[in-house]
């Protein structure tokens, strides 16, 4: 399982590449798979990083330290791509992103979509859903799912607002 944070924290002194490697190998160990060797891992990360517009320089820097909002979110998606989780939770990944950055992040997320992987995307806006087209939409109010529907439900919400649902939950 993977949780993409709304506000990824900065960890000075831990290089992104080293962090990714330790995390990926911990996963593989837990799954009973062979750990990555350094060259294997470099190859694995590089391809994924390029797709997300993350350059080598960013990988050498400490985890999220001095990254812009967009860079942090891209780094989160890179972690997700490297760790290959079966369930992903994306918590307001769209906050603080401009249109271009949102597209890069969404492309990254879409590339990870597969029948073997579930994703929960948490957002307040339709905007992100133009890029990441959901299979199902659930409306959560006061900790309960108050309505479920197809992707059109999100469009309906965008038009009418949440007001109708807030009452129901109470």
């Amino acid at each position: 399982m993977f949780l993409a944070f709304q506000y990824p924290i900065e960890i000075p002194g831990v290089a992104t590449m080293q962090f990714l490697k330790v995390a990926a190998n911990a996963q593989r160990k837990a799954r009973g798979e062979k750990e990555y060797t350094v060259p294997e891992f470099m190859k694995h990360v590089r391809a994924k990083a390029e797709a997300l517009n993350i350059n080598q320089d960013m990988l050498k820097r400490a985890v999220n330290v001095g990254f812009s909002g967009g860079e942090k979110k891209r780094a989160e998606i890179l972690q997700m791509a490297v760790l290959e989780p079966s369930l992903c939770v994306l918590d307001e990944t769209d906050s603080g992103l401009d249109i271009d950055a949102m597209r890069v992040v969404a492309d990254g997320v879409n590339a990870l979509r597969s029948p073997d992987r579930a994703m929960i995307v948490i957002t307040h806006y339709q905007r992100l859903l133009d890029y990441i087209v959901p299979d199902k939409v659930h409306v959560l109010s006061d900790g309960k799912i108050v309505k479920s529907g197809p992707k059109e439900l999100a469009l309906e919400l965008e038009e009418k607002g949440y007001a109708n649902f807030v009452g129901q939950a109470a």
Partner: protein
Amino acid sequence: MNVMTTMTPAEQALGLTLPNRREEEWKWTDLRRFVERPYGAVVPADRKAVERLLAQSPFAGLKGPRLVIANGVVDEKLSRLAGVKLAKGAAAVAHEDVLLSLNNKLGVAGATLTFEGAVDQPVVIVFVTTGENSAVASRLHLDVAEGASASVIEVHLGEGAYLHNPVVSASIGKGARLDRVKVEQEASSAQHLSHLIATLGANAILNDFTLTAGAALSRQNVNVDFTGKGSNLRVNGSYLLTDSQHADTRLIVDHKVPHCTSRELFKCVMAEKARGVFQGKVIVRPDAQKTDGKQSSHALLLSETAEFDAKPELEIYADDVICGHGTTCGDLDHDHLFYLRSRGIPEAEARSLLVQAFLAEAIEAVENEQVREVLTEMIVERLV
């Protein structure tokens, strides 16, 4: 006047009075109480043990020149001295200090390494000490000639409950540079009482890093004197202490001349009941205008019972200087730990990563990449 108290059996054996906590510098390290064994005479080092320890040295993989000093005596057979200028004896140093007095009292011939021109390969100097209840003195002088550059790695290893008192002096000539790395990894029941005295000529550079990881008690006195303009000093250090280890560094940087820069950074990690002490003093004499000095010490306490004491001091007599100091002390950041664990990294590994990250800043000063990697590996091994 001091009233002479009865000498302890340990003091009688060493032949001098040891400082106690009523002396400001020894406030946290009451040597009179710490040194309680009546250490006896030095016996020749156990050859087998020395060879075994050498093989275990973290720098055993470095192929370059090596100087082995076993129980205070140069072992030429185990050393690789091709291209190294080694002479017997070491010049006396002009500092008053109990650890120097001890060195003189214990009596040791010592050795001098002279560096001329540019020496690329680091010289590994291994101090191996073996024996139960011996007080061993070592004495080494590093002479870096005008315009020369040198790199040394000092490793302290041993076996047994001994006291090791190494005194290293370094004279860095005009326009010369010395890179020094010290790894204190003495036997777990040993006591390490060392002194480094360095003198920098004009436009000279001293880049120093010490990793303190071994010994039950480690007290390291460091004096650096600026005697020529335009020189640069960096003294970094890391402690990696656990159980009831006690390490105390007393550093005095003396700016006697103008236009010199000094930087000190200590990053100390204490676990269990370990105690770390850092006493750093920067003196800026009236003539030392345009001095730029910064000192900081940071501690990471991994348990409720670990302790860190810091005494940063600035003694400034000049009026056109930039000087500052800072100290922090804390435990691991829980948010950092949570983030790493959320990525599937087991807690122990996450903690180790964060400790490595904390220490990394101090190790960065080591410019030789291979040496830096060995240091990092040592730290990782110790943290597992």
